[in-house]
Protein backbone atom coordinates (compact mmCIF):
# COMPACT_ATOMS: atom_id res chain seq x y z
CA UNK A 1 0.00 0.00 0.00
CA UNK A 2 2.74 2.42 0.96
CA UNK A 3 4.36 2.46 -2.43
CA UNK A 4 1.02 3.58 -3.83
CA UNK A 5 1.39 6.82 -1.93
CA UNK A 6 3.97 8.03 -4.39
CA UNK A 7 1.20 8.50 -6.93
CA UNK A 8 -0.68 11.76 -6.97
CA UNK A 9 -3.90 10.01 -7.85
CA UNK A 10 -3.67 7.89 -4.76
CA UNK A 11 -2.88 10.79 -2.49
CA UNK A 12 -5.81 12.68 -3.94
CA UNK A 13 -8.03 9.66 -3.56
CA UNK A 14 -7.09 9.35 0.10
CA UNK A 15 -7.63 13.04 0.71
CA UNK A 16 -10.96 12.89 -1.08
CA UNK A 17 -11.99 9.89 1.00
CA UNK A 18 -11.12 11.68 4.22
CA UNK A 19 -12.80 14.95 3.28
CA UNK A 20 -15.88 13.12 2.03
CA UNK A 21 -16.04 11.13 5.25
CA UNK A 22 -15.98 14.29 7.31
CA UNK A 23 -18.85 15.90 5.42
CA UNK A 24 -20.79 12.65 5.31
CA UNK A 25 -20.12 11.83 8.93
CA UNK A 26 -21.55 15.09 10.21
CA UNK A 27 -24.44 15.44 7.82
CA UNK A 28 -25.07 11.71 7.77
CA UNK A 29 -25.83 11.73 11.48
CA UNK A 30 -28.67 14.18 10.87
CA UNK A 31 -29.82 12.17 7.89
CA UNK A 32 -29.96 9.02 9.97
CA UNK A 33 -31.51 10.38 13.14
CA UNK A 34 -34.04 12.55 11.38
CA UNK A 35 -34.79 9.62 9.08
CA UNK A 36 -34.38 11.59 5.91
CA UNK A 37 -32.31 9.05 4.05
CA UNK A 38 -34.97 9.03 1.43
CA UNK A 39 -35.09 12.77 1.00
CA UNK A 40 -31.32 12.77 0.65
CA UNK A 41 -31.60 10.13 -2.04
CA UNK A 42 -34.23 12.30 -3.66
CA UNK A 43 -32.00 15.36 -3.68
CA UNK A 44 -29.16 13.27 -5.04
CA UNK A 45 -31.18 11.91 -7.91
CA UNK A 46 -33.02 15.12 -8.60
CA UNK A 47 -29.69 16.87 -8.90
CA UNK A 48 -29.14 14.81 -11.99
CA UNK A 49 -31.50 17.26 -13.64
CA UNK A 50 -28.95 19.96 -12.83
CA UNK A 51 -26.26 18.03 -14.61
CA UNK A 52 -28.55 17.85 -17.62
CA UNK A 53 -29.09 21.61 -17.49
CA UNK A 54 -25.36 22.16 -17.28
CA UNK A 55 -24.75 20.07 -20.35
CA UNK A 56 -27.62 21.59 -22.24
CA UNK A 57 -26.44 25.13 -21.61
CA UNK A 58 -22.91 24.09 -22.32
CA UNK A 59 -21.61 25.24 -18.96
CA UNK A 60 -19.70 23.33 -16.33
CA UNK A 61 -22.24 20.81 -14.99
CA UNK A 62 -21.30 21.92 -11.50
CA UNK A 63 -22.94 25.29 -12.17
CA UNK A 64 -26.11 23.51 -13.17
CA UNK A 65 -25.80 21.09 -10.33
CA UNK A 66 -25.39 23.47 -7.40
CA UNK A 67 -28.42 25.72 -7.97
CA UNK A 68 -30.56 22.82 -9.12
CA UNK A 69 -29.87 20.63 -6.15
CA UNK A 70 -30.29 23.49 -3.69
CA UNK A 71 -33.54 24.32 -5.41
CA UNK A 72 -34.77 20.77 -5.35
CA UNK A 73 -33.84 20.50 -1.67
CA UNK A 74 -35.87 23.60 -0.93
CA UNK A 75 -38.80 22.46 -3.03
CA UNK A 76 -38.80 19.06 -1.39
CA UNK A 77 -38.68 20.69 1.98
CA UNK A 78 -41.50 23.09 1.23
CA UNK A 79 -43.66 20.51 -0.47
CA UNK A 80 -43.29 18.07 2.36
CA UNK A 81 -43.94 20.67 5.04
CA UNK A 82 -46.51 22.90 3.45
CA UNK A 83 -48.78 20.60 1.57
CA UNK A 84 -50.84 17.60 2.30
CA UNK A 85 -48.85 15.43 -0.08
CA UNK A 86 -47.20 12.66 1.89
CA UNK A 87 -43.54 13.49 2.23
CA UNK A 88 -42.20 10.31 0.77
CA UNK A 89 -44.44 10.54 -2.23
CA UNK A 90 -43.36 14.09 -2.93
CA UNK A 91 -39.79 13.00 -2.78
CA UNK A 92 -40.35 10.02 -5.04
CA UNK A 93 -41.87 12.33 -7.58
CA UNK A 94 -39.21 15.03 -7.53
CA UNK A 95 -36.65 12.28 -7.60
CA UNK A 96 -37.91 10.87 -10.85
CA UNK A 97 -38.70 14.27 -12.26
CA UNK A 98 -35.13 15.46 -11.77
CA UNK A 99 -33.80 12.32 -13.37
CA UNK A 100 -36.22 12.63 -16.28
CA UNK A 101 -35.26 16.24 -16.89
CA UNK A 102 -31.61 15.26 -16.83
CA UNK A 103 -32.09 12.45 -19.30
CA UNK A 104 -34.13 14.50 -21.71
CA UNK A 105 -31.82 17.51 -21.62
CA UNK A 106 -28.77 15.38 -22.09
CA UNK A 107 -30.53 13.71 -24.95
CA UNK A 108 -31.28 17.05 -26.54
CA UNK A 109 -27.78 18.39 -26.06
CA UNK A 110 -26.03 18.06 -29.37
CA UNK A 111 -22.55 16.70 -29.40
CA UNK A 112 -22.36 15.39 -25.93
CA UNK A 113 -22.38 11.93 -24.55
CA UNK A 114 -22.23 12.39 -20.83
CA UNK A 115 -20.43 9.88 -18.75
CA UNK A 116 -23.54 8.92 -16.88
CA UNK A 117 -21.77 6.10 -15.22
CA UNK A 118 -19.35 8.47 -13.57
CA UNK A 119 -22.19 10.41 -12.01
CA UNK A 120 -23.91 7.26 -10.91
CA UNK A 121 -20.87 5.47 -9.62
CA UNK A 122 -18.21 8.13 -9.29
CA UNK A 123 -14.52 7.74 -9.70
CA UNK A 124 -12.50 8.48 -6.66
CA UNK A 125 -9.26 7.65 -8.44
CA UNK A 126 -9.38 10.59 -10.78
CA UNK A 127 -10.32 13.43 -8.45
CA UNK A 128 -8.60 16.59 -9.60
CA UNK A 129 -6.90 18.90 -7.15
CA UNK A 130 -9.54 21.58 -7.73
CA UNK A 131 -12.20 19.24 -6.38
CA UNK A 132 -10.12 18.63 -3.29
CA UNK A 133 -10.08 22.35 -2.56
CA UNK A 134 -13.79 22.53 -3.14
CA UNK A 135 -14.31 19.71 -0.67
CA UNK A 136 -12.12 21.42 1.89
CA UNK A 137 -14.27 24.52 1.57
CA UNK A 138 -17.43 22.48 1.92
CA UNK A 139 -16.17 20.75 5.03
CA UNK A 140 -15.40 24.13 6.55
CA UNK A 141 -18.89 25.43 5.79
CA UNK A 142 -20.54 22.34 7.19
CA UNK A 143 -18.51 22.34 10.37
CA UNK A 144 -19.19 26.00 10.95
CA UNK A 145 -22.94 25.83 10.36
CA UNK A 146 -23.36 22.70 12.43
CA UNK A 147 -21.31 24.20 15.25
CA UNK A 148 -23.44 27.33 15.22
CA UNK A 149 -26.79 25.55 14.98
CA UNK A 150 -26.05 22.41 16.92
CA UNK A 151 -28.75 22.88 19.56
CA UNK A 152 -31.28 24.14 17.04
CA UNK A 153 -30.77 21.21 14.70
CA UNK A 154 -31.02 18.84 17.62
CA UNK A 155 -34.38 20.27 18.63
CA UNK A 156 -35.55 20.25 15.04
CA UNK A 157 -34.68 16.63 14.52
CA UNK A 158 -36.20 15.62 17.81
CA UNK A 159 -39.48 17.49 17.82
CA UNK A 160 -40.48 19.96 15.12
CA UNK A 161 -43.63 21.20 16.80
CA UNK A 162 -41.69 22.02 19.92
CA UNK A 163 -39.06 23.81 17.88
CA UNK A 164 -41.78 26.05 16.52
CA UNK A 165 -43.24 26.70 19.93
CA UNK A 166 -39.76 27.70 21.10
CA UNK A 167 -40.02 30.60 18.71
CA UNK A 168 -37.66 29.18 16.11
CA UNK A 169 -38.66 28.77 12.51
CA UNK A 170 -38.66 25.02 12.14
CA UNK A 171 -39.20 25.42 8.43
CA UNK A 172 -36.17 27.63 7.90
CA UNK A 173 -34.01 25.34 9.99
CA UNK A 174 -35.22 22.32 8.06
CA UNK A 175 -34.50 24.02 4.78
CA UNK A 176 -31.04 24.98 6.01
CA UNK A 177 -30.39 21.37 6.91
CA UNK A 178 -31.61 20.17 3.52
CA UNK A 179 -29.40 22.74 1.82
CA UNK A 180 -26.40 21.43 3.72
CA UNK A 181 -27.34 17.96 2.55
CA UNK A 182 -27.66 19.22 -1.01
CA UNK A 183 -24.23 20.85 -0.85
CA UNK A 184 -22.69 17.70 0.50
CA UNK A 185 -24.25 15.71 -2.26
CA UNK A 186 -23.19 18.09 -5.00
CA UNK A 187 -19.59 18.05 -4.00
CA UNK A 188 -19.45 14.34 -3.50
CA UNK A 189 -21.25 13.34 -6.66
CA UNK A 190 -18.20 13.64 -8.86
CA UNK A 191 -16.02 11.91 -6.35
CA UNK A 192 -18.06 8.98 -5.22
CA UNK A 193 -21.15 8.99 -7.41
CA UNK A 194 -24.80 9.16 -6.56
CA UNK A 195 -24.96 5.59 -5.33
CA UNK A 196 -21.98 5.71 -3.03
CA UNK A 197 -23.10 8.98 -1.48
CA UNK A 198 -26.14 7.40 0.05
CA UNK A 199 -23.97 4.66 1.49
CA UNK A 200 -21.45 7.11 2.92
CA UNK A 201 -24.20 9.21 4.41
CA UNK A 202 -26.01 6.38 6.12
CA UNK A 203 -23.64 3.61 7.03
CA UNK A 204 -21.05 5.29 9.24
CA UNK A 205 -23.70 7.35 11.00
CA UNK A 206 -25.95 4.42 11.59
CA UNK A 207 -23.11 2.26 12.84
CA UNK A 208 -22.11 4.96 15.28
CA UNK A 209 -25.68 5.09 16.56
CA UNK A 210 -25.08 1.69 18.14
CA UNK A 211 -22.29 2.97 20.29
CA UNK A 212 -23.65 6.16 21.73
CA UNK A 213 -26.81 8.00 22.66
CA UNK A 214 -25.10 11.34 22.18
CA UNK A 215 -25.53 13.27 18.98
CA UNK A 216 -22.13 14.95 19.05
CA UNK A 217 -20.24 11.75 19.78
CA UNK A 218 -22.14 10.09 16.96
CA UNK A 219 -20.63 12.61 14.58
CA UNK A 220 -17.06 11.96 15.69
CA UNK A 221 -17.57 8.24 15.51
CA UNK A 222 -19.23 8.44 12.11
CA UNK A 223 -16.27 10.38 10.73
CA UNK A 224 -13.84 7.83 12.11
CA UNK A 225 -15.83 4.94 10.69
CA UNK A 226 -16.16 6.69 7.34
CA UNK A 227 -12.43 7.36 7.05
CA UNK A 228 -11.57 3.88 8.14
CA UNK A 229 -13.96 2.16 5.76
CA UNK A 230 -13.18 4.25 2.76
CA UNK A 231 -9.45 3.79 3.17
CA UNK A 232 -9.90 0.08 3.76
CA UNK A 233 -12.15 -0.14 0.71
CA UNK A 234 -9.62 1.73 -1.36
CA UNK A 235 -6.91 -0.68 -0.30
CA UNK A 236 -9.09 -3.71 -0.97
CA UNK A 237 -9.96 -2.39 -4.38
CA UNK A 238 -6.26 -2.34 -5.07
CA UNK A 239 -5.73 -5.85 -3.82
CA UNK A 240 -8.69 -7.35 -5.68
CA UNK A 241 -8.45 -5.09 -8.70
CA UNK A 242 -12.06 -4.00 -8.40
CA UNK A 243 -13.74 -0.63 -8.88
CA UNK A 244 -12.89 1.53 -5.89
CA UNK A 245 -16.25 3.16 -5.19
CA UNK A 246 -18.11 -0.10 -5.23
CA UNK A 247 -15.47 -1.80 -3.13
CA UNK A 248 -15.71 0.90 -0.49
CA UNK A 249 -19.44 0.30 -0.26
CA UNK A 250 -18.96 -3.42 -0.17
CA UNK A 251 -16.41 -3.18 2.63
CA UNK A 252 -18.65 -0.86 4.58
CA UNK A 253 -21.76 -2.91 4.22
CA UNK A 254 -19.98 -6.14 5.01
CA UNK A 255 -18.68 -4.75 8.27
CA UNK A 256 -22.08 -3.29 9.00
CA UNK A 257 -23.86 -6.54 8.35
CA UNK A 258 -21.34 -8.57 10.33
CA UNK A 259 -21.63 -6.08 13.14
CA UNK A 260 -25.29 -6.43 13.40
CA UNK A 261 -25.29 -10.17 12.94
CA UNK A 262 -23.03 -10.21 15.95
CA UNK A 263 -25.11 -7.62 17.75
CA UNK A 264 -27.96 -10.01 17.45
CA UNK A 265 -30.29 -10.96 14.70
CA UNK A 266 -32.42 -12.35 17.50
CA UNK A 267 -35.73 -10.53 17.45
CA UNK A 268 -36.33 -8.46 20.55
CA UNK A 269 -39.98 -8.09 19.69
CA UNK A 270 -41.59 -11.39 18.88
CA UNK A 271 -43.35 -11.51 15.56
Amino acid at each position, binding site marked *: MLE*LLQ*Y*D*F*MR*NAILAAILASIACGIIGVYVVVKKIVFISGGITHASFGGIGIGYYLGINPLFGLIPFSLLSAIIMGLVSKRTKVAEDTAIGILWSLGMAIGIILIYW*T*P*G*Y*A*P*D*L*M*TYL*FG*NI*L*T*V*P*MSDIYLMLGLDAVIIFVVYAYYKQFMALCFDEEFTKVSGLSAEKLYLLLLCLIALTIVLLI*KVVGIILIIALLTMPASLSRHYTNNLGKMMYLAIIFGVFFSLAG*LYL*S*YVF*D*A*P*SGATIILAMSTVYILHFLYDGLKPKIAS
Partner: protein
Amino acid sequence: VDEQSSSETTSDSNDNSIIVGVSILPQQEFVEKIAGDNVEVVVMVPPGADPHSYEPTPSQLTALSKAKMYAMVGSGITVEDTMMDKLEDLNPDMQIIDCSEGITLIEMEAHVHEGEEETDEEDHEEESGLDPHIWTSPDNVEIMVENIYQGLVSVDPDNQETYLENKNAYLAELNELDEQIQNTLEGKEGGSFMVYHPAWGYFANHYGITQVAVEIEGKEPSVQDMQNIIDEANEEGIKVIFVQSGFSTVSAEAIADEIGGEVVEVDPLAKDYIDNLAKVAEAFEKGLA
Protein backbone atom coordinates in the same frame (compact mmCIF):
# COMPACT_ATOMS: atom_id res chain seq x y z
CA VAL B 1 -19.47 18.17 -35.81
CA ASP B 2 -22.23 19.29 -38.10
CA GLU B 3 -24.97 19.83 -35.64
CA GLN B 4 -28.61 19.75 -36.53
CA SER B 5 -28.53 18.56 -40.12
CA SER B 6 -28.43 14.88 -39.47
CA SER B 7 -31.18 14.88 -36.92
CA GLU B 8 -33.32 16.58 -39.50
CA THR B 9 -32.55 13.89 -42.05
CA THR B 10 -33.72 11.37 -39.55
CA SER B 11 -37.14 12.88 -39.14
CA ASP B 12 -38.43 13.98 -42.52
CA SER B 13 -38.57 11.38 -45.19
CA ASN B 14 -39.59 11.97 -48.75
CA ASP B 15 -41.14 9.05 -50.42
CA ASN B 16 -39.21 8.67 -53.65
CA SER B 17 -35.70 8.24 -52.27
CA ILE B 18 -34.42 5.04 -50.74
CA ILE B 19 -34.00 5.08 -47.00
CA VAL B 20 -30.87 3.48 -45.64
CA GLY B 21 -30.30 2.99 -41.97
CA VAL B 22 -26.85 3.06 -40.45
CA SER B 23 -25.57 2.92 -36.90
CA ILE B 24 -22.93 5.63 -36.69
CA LEU B 25 -22.04 8.88 -38.43
CA PRO B 26 -18.96 7.74 -40.37
CA GLN B 27 -21.20 5.14 -42.00
CA GLN B 28 -23.55 7.89 -43.09
CA GLU B 29 -20.64 9.52 -44.85
CA PHE B 30 -19.72 6.24 -46.55
CA VAL B 31 -23.24 5.64 -47.78
CA GLU B 32 -23.65 9.18 -48.99
CA LYS B 33 -20.32 9.12 -50.78
CA ILE B 34 -21.42 6.04 -52.71
CA ALA B 35 -25.07 6.79 -53.25
CA GLY B 36 -25.09 10.56 -53.45
CA ASP B 37 -28.60 11.98 -53.39
CA ASN B 38 -30.26 8.72 -54.30
CA VAL B 39 -30.67 7.68 -50.72
CA GLU B 40 -31.67 9.24 -47.53
CA VAL B 41 -29.65 8.09 -44.56
CA VAL B 42 -31.04 7.58 -41.08
CA VAL B 43 -28.40 7.41 -38.36
CA MET B 44 -29.19 5.48 -35.26
CA VAL B 45 -26.64 7.15 -33.01
CA PRO B 46 -26.90 10.90 -33.47
CA PRO B 47 -23.89 13.21 -33.22
CA GLY B 48 -22.39 13.18 -29.79
CA ALA B 49 -24.36 10.23 -28.50
CA ASP B 50 -22.47 7.25 -27.22
CA PRO B 51 -22.83 4.14 -29.38
CA HIS B 52 -22.18 2.07 -26.30
CA SER B 53 -25.33 3.21 -24.61
CA TYR B 54 -27.66 4.95 -27.03
CA GLU B 55 -31.35 4.06 -27.23
CA PRO B 56 -33.33 5.17 -30.30
CA THR B 57 -36.46 7.33 -30.21
CA PRO B 58 -39.89 6.59 -31.68
CA SER B 59 -39.29 8.83 -34.68
CA GLN B 60 -36.08 7.03 -35.50
CA LEU B 61 -37.86 3.73 -35.29
CA THR B 62 -40.66 4.89 -37.55
CA ALA B 63 -38.13 6.20 -40.05
CA LEU B 64 -36.22 2.94 -39.92
CA SER B 65 -39.35 0.94 -40.41
CA LYS B 66 -39.49 2.42 -43.92
CA ALA B 67 -35.85 1.68 -44.66
CA LYS B 68 -34.88 -0.59 -47.53
CA MET B 69 -31.50 -1.42 -46.16
CA TYR B 70 -29.61 -1.24 -42.90
CA ALA B 71 -25.86 -1.18 -42.74
CA MET B 72 -24.75 -2.37 -39.36
CA VAL B 73 -21.19 -1.93 -38.17
CA GLY B 74 -21.38 -5.54 -37.17
CA SER B 75 -18.45 -5.57 -34.82
CA GLY B 76 -20.56 -5.71 -31.69
CA ILE B 77 -21.34 -2.13 -30.80
CA THR B 78 -23.88 -2.07 -28.03
CA VAL B 79 -26.66 -0.27 -29.80
CA GLU B 80 -26.72 -2.95 -32.48
CA ASP B 81 -26.63 -5.76 -29.94
CA THR B 82 -29.78 -4.43 -28.38
CA MET B 83 -31.61 -3.13 -31.43
CA MET B 84 -31.03 -5.41 -34.39
CA ASP B 85 -33.58 -8.08 -33.45
CA LYS B 86 -36.08 -5.36 -32.86
CA LEU B 87 -35.38 -3.76 -36.21
CA GLU B 88 -35.77 -7.07 -37.97
CA ASP B 89 -39.16 -7.53 -36.32
CA LEU B 90 -40.10 -4.01 -37.15
CA ASN B 91 -39.16 -4.16 -40.79
CA PRO B 92 -38.75 -7.72 -41.98
CA ASP B 93 -38.24 -6.66 -45.60
CA MET B 94 -35.25 -4.54 -44.78
CA GLN B 95 -31.97 -5.81 -46.15
CA ILE B 96 -29.40 -5.92 -43.40
CA ILE B 97 -25.78 -5.86 -44.34
CA ASP B 98 -22.86 -6.35 -42.04
CA CYS B 99 -20.06 -3.88 -42.75
CA SER B 100 -17.58 -5.88 -40.72
CA GLU B 101 -17.79 -8.87 -43.04
CA GLY B 102 -14.30 -9.65 -44.12
CA ILE B 103 -12.65 -7.71 -41.33
CA THR B 104 -10.76 -9.63 -38.69
CA LEU B 105 -11.73 -8.34 -35.30
CA ILE B 106 -8.87 -7.88 -32.90
CA GLU B 107 -8.77 -8.47 -29.19
CA MET B 108 -9.50 -5.49 -27.03
CA GLU B 109 -6.21 -4.30 -25.63
CA ALA B 110 -6.40 -5.45 -22.05
CA HIS B 111 -4.92 -3.47 -19.25
CA VAL B 112 -1.39 -4.52 -18.46
CA HIS B 113 -1.84 -6.70 -15.43
CA GLU B 114 1.52 -7.72 -14.17
CA GLY B 115 1.64 -11.24 -12.81
CA GLU B 116 -1.98 -12.27 -12.62
CA GLU B 117 -2.62 -11.98 -16.30
CA GLU B 118 -4.31 -15.25 -17.17
CA THR B 119 -6.34 -15.84 -14.03
CA ASP B 120 -9.85 -15.99 -15.41
CA GLU B 121 -9.04 -15.95 -19.08
CA GLU B 122 -11.13 -19.09 -19.62
CA ASP B 123 -14.34 -17.41 -18.61
CA HIS B 124 -14.07 -14.92 -21.42
CA GLU B 125 -16.86 -15.21 -23.83
CA GLU B 126 -16.11 -15.36 -27.50
CA GLU B 127 -16.88 -11.90 -28.82
CA SER B 128 -16.92 -9.91 -25.65
CA GLY B 129 -13.21 -9.24 -25.62
CA LEU B 130 -13.21 -7.97 -29.20
CA ASP B 131 -12.70 -4.38 -30.19
CA PRO B 132 -15.74 -3.01 -32.01
CA HIS B 133 -14.21 0.25 -33.29
CA ILE B 134 -13.31 -1.10 -36.73
CA TRP B 135 -13.91 2.14 -38.63
CA THR B 136 -10.93 3.97 -37.18
CA SER B 137 -8.56 2.37 -39.67
CA PRO B 138 -8.81 3.34 -43.37
CA ASP B 139 -8.09 -0.17 -44.61
CA ASN B 140 -11.07 -1.48 -42.65
CA VAL B 141 -13.17 1.30 -44.06
CA GLU B 142 -12.29 0.14 -47.57
CA ILE B 143 -13.89 -3.19 -46.75
CA MET B 144 -16.84 -1.49 -45.10
CA VAL B 145 -17.36 0.66 -48.18
CA GLU B 146 -17.22 -2.41 -50.34
CA ASN B 147 -19.86 -4.10 -48.20
CA ILE B 148 -22.08 -1.05 -48.30
CA TYR B 149 -21.72 -0.87 -52.04
CA GLN B 150 -22.80 -4.49 -52.41
CA GLY B 151 -25.79 -3.81 -50.25
CA LEU B 152 -26.81 -0.70 -52.13
CA VAL B 153 -26.56 -2.52 -55.40
CA SER B 154 -28.78 -5.29 -54.18
CA VAL B 155 -31.52 -2.92 -53.03
CA ASP B 156 -31.18 -0.52 -55.94
CA PRO B 157 -29.69 -2.36 -58.91
CA ASP B 158 -30.81 0.42 -61.29
CA ASN B 159 -28.11 2.77 -60.10
CA GLN B 160 -25.31 0.27 -59.96
CA GLU B 161 -23.08 2.23 -62.32
CA THR B 162 -23.26 5.46 -60.41
CA TYR B 163 -22.56 3.58 -57.24
CA LEU B 164 -19.59 1.79 -58.67
CA GLU B 165 -18.10 5.02 -59.91
CA ASN B 166 -18.64 6.79 -56.63
CA LYS B 167 -17.30 3.87 -54.66
CA ASN B 168 -14.11 3.75 -56.62
CA ALA B 169 -13.60 7.46 -56.27
CA TYR B 170 -14.05 7.19 -52.54
CA LEU B 171 -11.76 4.20 -52.25
CA ALA B 172 -9.13 6.26 -53.99
CA GLU B 173 -9.62 9.04 -51.48
CA LEU B 174 -9.27 6.54 -48.68
CA ASN B 175 -6.07 5.23 -50.21
CA GLU B 176 -4.70 8.71 -50.39
CA LEU B 177 -5.67 9.26 -46.76
CA ASP B 178 -3.89 6.06 -45.79
CA GLU B 179 -0.69 7.24 -47.48
CA GLN B 180 -0.98 10.66 -45.99
CA ILE B 181 -1.25 9.18 -42.53
CA GLN B 182 1.68 6.85 -43.19
CA ASN B 183 3.68 9.95 -44.01
CA THR B 184 2.51 11.82 -41.01
CA LEU B 185 3.45 9.01 -38.69
CA GLU B 186 6.71 8.31 -40.50
CA GLY B 187 9.39 7.19 -38.09
CA LYS B 188 7.03 6.94 -35.14
CA GLU B 189 6.43 3.21 -35.45
CA GLY B 190 6.47 1.45 -32.13
CA GLY B 191 5.49 4.65 -30.33
CA SER B 192 2.66 4.75 -27.81
CA PHE B 193 -0.17 7.17 -27.33
CA MET B 194 -2.66 7.32 -24.54
CA VAL B 195 -6.41 7.55 -25.03
CA TYR B 196 -9.18 7.66 -22.52
CA HIS B 197 -11.68 5.58 -24.46
CA PRO B 198 -9.93 2.90 -26.51
CA ALA B 199 -11.50 3.63 -29.87
CA TRP B 200 -8.25 3.60 -31.82
CA GLY B 201 -7.14 -0.02 -31.61
CA TYR B 202 -7.45 -0.71 -35.36
CA PHE B 203 -5.81 2.56 -36.26
CA ALA B 204 -2.89 1.80 -33.97
CA ASN B 205 -2.62 -1.72 -35.30
CA HIS B 206 -2.58 -0.54 -38.88
CA TYR B 207 0.11 2.08 -38.39
CA GLY B 208 2.26 0.07 -36.05
CA ILE B 209 1.79 2.20 -32.98
CA THR B 210 0.42 1.28 -29.56
CA GLN B 211 -2.74 2.51 -27.94
CA VAL B 212 -2.70 2.75 -24.17
CA ALA B 213 -6.26 3.00 -22.89
CA VAL B 214 -7.39 4.44 -19.61
CA GLU B 215 -10.94 3.14 -19.71
CA ILE B 216 -11.78 -0.28 -21.07
CA GLU B 217 -15.18 -1.45 -22.24
CA GLY B 218 -16.91 1.40 -20.52
CA LYS B 219 -15.31 0.58 -17.19
CA GLU B 220 -13.33 3.09 -15.23
CA PRO B 221 -9.77 2.08 -14.35
CA SER B 222 -9.09 0.36 -11.06
CA VAL B 223 -6.24 1.29 -8.74
CA GLN B 224 -3.96 -1.26 -10.37
CA ASP B 225 -4.95 -0.01 -13.80
CA MET B 226 -4.13 3.53 -12.77
CA GLN B 227 -0.82 2.45 -11.37
CA ASN B 228 0.09 0.57 -14.51
CA ILE B 229 -1.09 3.31 -16.81
CA ILE B 230 0.91 5.92 -14.98
CA ASP B 231 4.01 3.76 -14.77
CA GLU B 232 3.76 3.01 -18.45
CA ALA B 233 3.20 6.62 -19.37
CA ASN B 234 6.22 7.64 -17.35
CA GLU B 235 8.35 4.88 -18.83
CA GLU B 236 7.37 5.71 -22.36
CA GLY B 237 7.38 9.43 -21.78
CA ILE B 238 3.75 9.86 -22.83
CA LYS B 239 2.65 13.44 -22.30
CA VAL B 240 -0.71 13.56 -24.07
CA ILE B 241 -4.01 11.90 -23.27
CA PHE B 242 -6.50 11.83 -26.09
CA VAL B 243 -10.15 12.01 -25.20
CA GLN B 244 -13.20 11.65 -27.34
CA SER B 245 -14.50 15.12 -28.08
CA GLY B 246 -17.55 15.92 -26.08
CA PHE B 247 -16.84 13.38 -23.36
CA SER B 248 -16.04 14.47 -19.87
CA THR B 249 -12.37 15.20 -19.52
CA VAL B 250 -12.15 15.36 -15.76
CA SER B 251 -10.70 11.91 -15.23
CA ALA B 252 -8.32 12.30 -18.13
CA GLU B 253 -7.17 15.61 -16.71
CA ALA B 254 -6.50 14.05 -13.34
CA ILE B 255 -4.19 11.56 -15.01
CA ALA B 256 -2.64 14.25 -17.17
CA ASP B 257 -1.84 16.19 -13.99
CA GLU B 258 -0.11 13.16 -12.60
CA ILE B 259 2.08 12.57 -15.63
CA GLY B 260 2.59 16.27 -16.27
CA GLY B 261 0.85 16.06 -19.62
CA GLU B 262 -2.13 17.55 -21.37
CA VAL B 263 -5.49 16.47 -22.70
CA VAL B 264 -6.26 16.67 -26.41
CA GLU B 265 -9.59 16.01 -28.06
CA VAL B 266 -9.99 13.70 -31.03
CA ASP B 267 -13.25 12.41 -32.45
CA PRO B 268 -13.63 8.82 -33.60
CA LEU B 269 -17.23 9.39 -34.69
CA ALA B 270 -16.99 12.49 -36.87
CA LYS B 271 -19.07 12.44 -39.99
CA ASP B 272 -16.40 14.07 -42.11
CA TYR B 273 -14.32 10.92 -42.07
CA ILE B 274 -11.36 11.73 -44.27
CA ASP B 275 -10.48 15.20 -43.05
CA ASN B 276 -11.09 14.18 -39.49
CA LEU B 277 -8.85 11.16 -39.61
CA ALA B 278 -6.06 13.19 -41.15
CA LYS B 279 -6.37 15.68 -38.33
CA VAL B 280 -6.41 12.90 -35.78
CA ALA B 281 -3.24 11.45 -37.25
CA GLU B 282 -1.51 14.80 -36.93
CA ALA B 283 -2.65 15.06 -33.35
CA PHE B 284 -1.36 11.59 -32.60
CA GLU B 285 1.93 12.42 -34.26
CA LYS B 286 2.46 15.24 -31.80
CA GLY B 287 1.38 13.14 -28.86
CA LEU B 288 3.26 9.97 -29.69
CA ALA B 289 6.03 8.93 -27.40
